[in-house]
């Protein structure tokens, strides 16, 4: 975590120094994650999600010199995004519906366990699956570096370690090590929620 924050501080400094390539790198890494983060909080309203992310980026860039590196840069962006979501609900108070996220539910562990079971046929399973899907998505988004991509390549695309290593321009040993750390990070993140 300390190393990640150090890297993030360096990235913030490069952006503040006017390095457009650094800004673009950050944008391309954070945009999809923040879009999903926002859309989970304004469900079925992609336009609102887009506006919230736009507000988030503009405010974060404006305040970037106040980033001190106490947390990961993505966590810092998420906090700004949360505030932008709150602004959105304040502006649209008449139509606002409070979104309850899975991590806020008291029996979240039971839900996760039922989801992890091979098949479930209870009528509420569809809604639960949707929430758990969002939770897994958010967890993958919150993982540092390219851990989320590596896990998707391995478990969804079924790529071999060698193929992942080629995509990441790494050696096979380093890729194995990265996948181990990615799995561990994912497990810890999920355990932290429940």
């Amino acid at each position, binding site marked *: 975590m300390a190393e990640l924050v150090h890297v993030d501080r360096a990235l913030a400094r490069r*952006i*503040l120094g*006017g390095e*457009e390539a650094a*800004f673009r790198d950050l*944008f391309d890494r954070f*945009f*999809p994650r923040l*879009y*999903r983060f926002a*859309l989970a909080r304004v469900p079925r309203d*992609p336009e609102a*999600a*887009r506006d919230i*992310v*736009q507000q988030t*980026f*503009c405010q974060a*860039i*404006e305040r*970037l*010199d106040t980033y001190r590196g106490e947390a990961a840069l993505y966590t810092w962006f998420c906090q700004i995004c949360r505030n932008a979501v709150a602004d959105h609900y304040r502006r649209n108070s008449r139509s606002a519906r409070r979104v309850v996220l899975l991590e806020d539910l008291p029996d979240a562990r039971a839900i*996760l366990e039922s*989801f*992890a079971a091979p098949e479930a046929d209870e009528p509420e399973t569809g809604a639960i*699956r949707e929430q*758990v*899907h969002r*939770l*897994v*998505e958010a967890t*993958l*988004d919150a993982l540092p570096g390219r851990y*989320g991509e590596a*896990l*998707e390549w391995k*478990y*969804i695309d079924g790529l071999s370690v060698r193929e992942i290593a080629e995509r990441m321009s790494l050696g096979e040993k380093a890729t194995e090590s990265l996948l181990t750390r990615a*799995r561990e990070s*994912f*497990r810890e993140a*999920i355990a932290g929620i429940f």
Partner: protein
Amino acid sequence: MKREMDIVESLIRSAGRRLDPPGDAYRQVLASATDAFRRKSVRRRQARWFALAAAIATLVVGAVLMMQWNAPAGRGDLASIERATGGVELAHGDGWQPLDGNRGSLGTGRRLRTQPDGRAALRLAGGASLRLAGETEVLLDAPGRIFVHHGTIYVDGGVRPGADPIEVVTPGGTAREIGTQFELQVAGARLRLRVREGSVSVDRGGRSLVGAAGEQIEIDDAGSVRRSAIGPASDAWAWAEAVAPVPNVDGRPATQLISWVARETGRRLRYESPAVEERAATVILHGNIHHLPPLAALEAMLATTDLEYVLEDDTMEIRARSEPIAEP
């Protein structure tokens, strides 16, 4: 470990691939964010440039003034002390001495400072009035040029046809009055300029700003500028009025005192009628009103006449007294 690995794999497989945001959302947000990034970059470059320029200017001014700081004083009179209250000190060699009775002329290179309770009023050689608030240190650099090390000063350039403008040099920039009354506060590279009358230009880091009457300009360490309004009769000027050197009015027409009070309090002067103005010109005052603030001095001196003043916003009107003066 195997069990945990299975849960991780199971969750990720079941959840499926993460949603990719729509391309048009990506392009729209990228355009806005890039615009914000570029604007921020330009502002930061400007701030860095101004800070660098201010630092260089400060070094140059500081070096020049340091050379003069230790130069022998007294090569020509640049100012005289008209009024001082509280702790006011003059530099002597490496130390400071209380002003006490020493209120004579001050030459080039003389340094003057006030303690928190100190106030001083100087008459500069060209006729302008220079006033020092508490915790202020100045150096008389050259005719019409003052270096303010720190603190707050007030300059009343007065009406001096053909006179050179007063130049106030500070670590954060140089202000030049253009027939005006203004206050300048200096704290390191930070400046606060308040213009009461006329206009004042401020040069800082290669950039020139002009403050007009009724305007307050604040420049921070990075060179950012904030403008706001300040009325000519605002209470903010009270400290400068309180230390104003009171003119000798004994044997002079009331119009002289009235004009002085109107200027000192930042108000436009208006007479109720031409007859009242004529009357004021024929009333001769007796005695003096030293150490009274301007309005209190006017009230005291008009008490024995058939004139009175009324304040309305930024205007002071002189009227014929509505109630007859009681006989002693």
